[in-house]
């Protein structure tokens, strides 16, 4: 791309795909924005009219609104915490030479290949079920009362299921980063008298900083919109205890048939995601520049 000619040519060649991507993004966004100012209910589709900010007021005054924002943040934060810390721990273990390394790695990665509704169903019916789940069996083995996870700790249960799904992703990225750490640096630190903990703090964590950032950024994008796991397990309840913003929008649109209100919620979700992205880039984005 050295000369003016090749630059112009490159722009021309890229233009169609850029245009396509732009349309793909702008049309749904514009339509959502349009519907958010309309009084548009599928139960009464003939009566569509402009309502100004009413939909936003309606969504904002919904008693579930602030709880769903809080739940969204708890799911994102909780899953990130578990996957980053757990991912580093598992990556450190997998980095050791062990017998059957290849098979162990495939086993560790496999949860990522299970689609979210299936994973949620497995957790709901086989692991966390209060009468025949594995956790209930364990509780009874110790003579304890089985916990009804989805009734007593609905949000925590969702966090655990989603974290289980994302842990392999974090582990995989952190493991490759760990393997790229220069062996002579570790040996130099060893000669310098650094024990395992010091080597971890001063050598491994700074080396992993960039990968941790990538894990946090990519996971946040997906975790803001967790939906299938909630639908399959708690259906947002009890009450609104495990309803996040994405699920609240689904409720408004497909259970309340309120397209206008759901669109307003969608726009609010977009704004919220941008606020999160802004603070996230401030907090960890500088790690990407190095």
């Amino acid at each position: 791309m050295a000369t003016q000619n090749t630059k112009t040519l490159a722009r021309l060649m890229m233009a169609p795909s850029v245009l396509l991507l732009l349309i793909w993004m702008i049309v749904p966004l514009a339509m959502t924005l349009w519907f958010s100012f309309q009084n548009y209910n599928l139960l009464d589709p003939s009566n569509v009219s402009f309502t100004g900010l009413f939909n936003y007021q309606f969504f904002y005054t919904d008693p579930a609104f602030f709880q769903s924002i809080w739940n969204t943040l708890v799911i994102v934060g909780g899953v990130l915490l578990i996957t980053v810390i757990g991912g580093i721990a598992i990556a450190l273990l997998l980095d050791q030479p062990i017998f059957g390394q290849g098979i162990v790695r495939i086993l560790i990665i496999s949860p990522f290949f299970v689609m979210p509704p299936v994973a949620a169903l497995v957790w709901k019916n086989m692991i966390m079920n209060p009468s025949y789940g594995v956790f209930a069996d364990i509780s009874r083995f110790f003579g304890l009362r089985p916990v009804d996870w989805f009734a007593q700790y609905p949000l925590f249960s969702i966090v655990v299921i989603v974290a289980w799904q994302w842990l392999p992703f974090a582990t995989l990225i952190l493991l490759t980063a760990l393997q790229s750490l220069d062996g002579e640096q570790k040996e130099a630190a060893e000669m310098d008298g650094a024990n395992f903990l010091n080597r971890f703090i001063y050598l491994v964590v700074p080396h992993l900083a960039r990968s941790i950032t990538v894990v946090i950024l990519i996971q946040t994008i997906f975790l803001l919109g967790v939906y299938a796991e909630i639908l399959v397990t708690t259906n947002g309840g009890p009450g609104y205890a495990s309803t996040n913003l994405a699920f609240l929008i689904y409720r408004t649109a497909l259970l309340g048939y309120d397209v206008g209100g759901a669109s307003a919620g969608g726009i609010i979700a977009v704004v919220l995601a941008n606020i999160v992205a802004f603070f996230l880039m401030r907090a960890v984005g500088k790690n990407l520049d190095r």
Partner: protein
Amino acid sequence: MGSITLQKVSKVFGEAKVIPSIDLEINDGEFVVFVGPSGCGKSTLLRLIAGLEDVSGGQILIDGKDVTQAAPAERGLAMVFQSYALYPHMSVRNNIAFPLKMAKMEKSAIDKKVTDAARVLNLTDYLERRPSQLSGGQRQRVAIGRAIVREPSAFLFDEPLSNLDAALRGTMRLEISDLHHQLKTTMVYVTHDQVEAMTMADKIVVLNRGNIEQVGSPLELYKSPRNLFVAGFIGSPHMNFVDGAYAQSKNAKTAGIRPEHLNLSKDSGIWRGTVKVAEHLGADTFLHLDVEGIGQITARCDGEFGAYHGDTVYMTPDEAKLHRFDDKGLALKA
């Protein structure tokens, strides 16, 4: 203090016996160079001394104390790695201070030592930079700085100059020799470059296939190599080996003559050869010759001699500087 003693040290990797058994004495304050071709076990031997590899047998003593089972940090040695192994996210200051910080030294004492080391190594202006912002030679000096602040009983160098360009290598060679004269600390230095070995060492250890071929001062190895391997390895260009009738006339299986010990003439001599390649270095010229009845011979002559491709040159070996070897490859006494 920093004397290192190896007693019957051996190292086995799986099936491969990298070092069968080595006995070696390194005296306090000595500059010892391990030299040998790739894969001769010289780096492994250094790593055994450092404690980065476990020995398979034998003992390692430092200042008379058995450290065979001691952790690397407990041995009081400092190592400079081939890749420098600087910590990339720390400034030069923190890199040099790291071993002191790990030793839980007081902050003011650390600052003083780092400043001193930086002054000795001309790094004062670069203390706040990251390793990635330094040139190869500066990184090398930071690695040395990190080693000297610990005041180790011995320094270990693992091919420290092999990543530098030729000119810088020459400068760093002088700087390391100079450092050795200032600190008077034991240094163990691994290299495959015999120029580094010859110019820096008090004592050279020539290794081949995990065995010590010969130990001695650079000039001892040059003047009286113990066997064919050492004779061929030390000296540049390599020694010429002549078998057959000429060697038998000297009561030897193989006769060895260094390129610089051949007297050249354009009209008379006992061997007659044709110049295949002439390498003119200015002061010297290396002639690669095809000699009738003997084969390839390399000769070193004065830059003024004036021989070119295709010329005929006569040569006579200097009998006093001739090396003789028996059928086992061992040197015969004169």
